[in-house]
């Protein structure tokens, strides 16, 4: 059996190599079995593709991938500071690891319960309020907290929730749940709170003031 030929050296006066080349894998030896000629590279390509897919680092959960984003609903004509009630679903606040917007396994049950609440209370818009701990800089934390809120939004949509009812708002590091500087305080601050728009608030007249 013949091992594939690989160029390991190039003559000094030869043009610069464009890369290492693998010689065709003894195709002539198998000319009598055309399916083998096709099957071998095909098998190799498929296996390589599979391996490449396995080894590509997955830095983000698939549910935040750009092309999977379900369009954001238009802003509601309310003031999120006063017209959203975060007490109702307080127990379902989703917590995150440091510098991460990945929804941990421990938090998924909460989102199933949020979906149950949405099913029991149809047409009630929710606010997903993203927060970060104060480590990091304000603008970065605002972006990170928004991504946390959007990760929760996409997870709920994945469970079957209606995207049009799911609004995000990012408070970055500006509104800590716990004021201290311990690791426990920071863990409590890396969160997405789920708020319910108060009944009747959406019908309120007038734009938020400029």
């Amino acid at each position: 059996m013949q091992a594939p030929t690989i160029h390991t050296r190039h003559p000094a006066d030869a043009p610069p190599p464009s890369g290492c080349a693998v010689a065709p894998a003894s195709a002539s030896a198998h000319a009598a079995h055309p399916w083998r000629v096709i099957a071998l590279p095909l098998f190799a390509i498929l296996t390589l593709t599979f391996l490449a897919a396995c080894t590509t680092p997955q830095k983000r959960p698939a549910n935040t991938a750009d092309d999977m984003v379900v369009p954001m609903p238009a802003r509601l004509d309310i003031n999120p500071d006063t017209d959203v009630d975060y007490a109702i679903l307080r127990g379902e606040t989703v917590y995150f690891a440091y510098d991460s917007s990945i929804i941990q396994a421990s938090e998924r049950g909460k989102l199933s319960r949020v979906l149950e609440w949405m099913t029991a209370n149809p047409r009630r818009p929710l606010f997903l309020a993203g927060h970060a701990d104060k480590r990091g800089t304000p603008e970065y934390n605002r972006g990170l907290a928004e991504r946390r809120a959007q990760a929760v939004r996409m997870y709920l949509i994945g469970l079957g929730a209606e995207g049009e009812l799911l609004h995000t708002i990012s408070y970055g590091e500006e509104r800590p749940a716990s004021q201290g500087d311990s690791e426990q305080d920071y863990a409590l601050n890396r969160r997405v709170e789920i708020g319910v728009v108060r009944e009747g608030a959406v019908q309120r007249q007038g734009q938020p003031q400029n």
Partner: protein
Amino acid sequence: MQLPPRCHTLPDSLRKAASRALRSLGVTRFAALAALTLLVAITFGFTLIPTAALAQDDIPTARPATPALQPDAPTAAPAAEADPGAGSTIQVTGAAKVDIQVQSISGTEGSTATTTLMTDLSRSQLINPTTTQAKYSATAQLGSGGLVARLTDTANGRVLVNKTYSGAWRDAVHQFADDITFATTGIPGFASSKIAFVSNSTGSKELYIMDIDGHNVRQLTSDRTISSSPAWSRDNTMLAYTSYKSGYPDVYIIKLATGQRTRVAYFPGINSGAAFSPDGTRLALTLSKDGNPELYIMPITGGGNNAAPVRLTRTRGAETSPSWSPTGDRIVFCSDDRGSPQLFITSSTPGGNTDRLSLNSTFTTEPDWSPDGRKITYTLRAGGLFQIGVYDMAVRNSVQCTTTGGQDSNWTRDSRHVVYTNNGQIYLLDTVTRQSTLIRGDLKGCGEVAVSK
């Protein structure tokens, strides 16, 4: 693209052993060949893939040395002999300061004004103000008509500055200091600059401005909400900032002369981190209206139907904190698309290449491009602390300039000093000597500084 000839052959004995082993397992020659081909292909693939990825990731971000970036910018010439602004580039080192005799300023506030002028000149790190005879002599009278001021070369009597500065005496003195600095060193002074910052000392984050020497603190907002991320227009007449005044994070522009505020970006999601383009017509900012927080460019007049924001980035991470190059063709920003926040440079028009800056930390945020185009300051994390870093575009080298902590650094006009915050206090840092000076001791809860240029 050229690749190194980094390939692998299997030793003969190994090949035979493998062949025997496979045969003993009843595997056909074909399958053995396929497996071996695969093995080699995979090894080969792994050698190739990271090489290709690396080659693309680490393309040096600096274009060839930058003098061409800003042809009109004065080059550094701290120059005793050289005619100001006459041209040869000398590296600023902190040595060889220009001696200037500051004569006592006459008038009721004269004594304080004299001290202020001398402090301003010292702070530049380029000038050594003295009360004794020196190469240059600064004289001024403070009266009802303003500050009548003059700078002379004592050797030949040549007058380098001869102006009457109107307005408040502090502003007048600061402007005189900047004119002296520029006339004798060719480097723009920053004594007349102002710092915009946020402070939560009243219980909510409000916007303030003050002179760079800590005087004239002025509160700009009293909204009792979150005000954040101020940025100056290049003509220093406007500030863009983020406010949660409507309940949502929106971008506003405030005109300093009148105090008039306009809400310019209020799309669904976040609207934040706006930075004025050098020509003053556009904002670069972060919006999440299309899902992920991404960078966009929009006119300062706001995004109407005819002027929808143009999207610059498309990633799975969050893009924040854009800062324009002085020529306006490029933007440096922070992205955590690769896991931790890192700095990237892209074109300010869609479709350009994006290059990552190779810096001294894997956690870097809040970049600010220097007015001379040669450096970028940023916040880095090292050993659990945030520190101020400076990246030099020409030599592609980054240094950490603080040891006791710092964040939100922002250049002054001389492209040498930065203003930053640490533990709620505002500091001025000389990036050459790496000395930090507290600007004012009685401020609390300050952050997010921006220096007028």
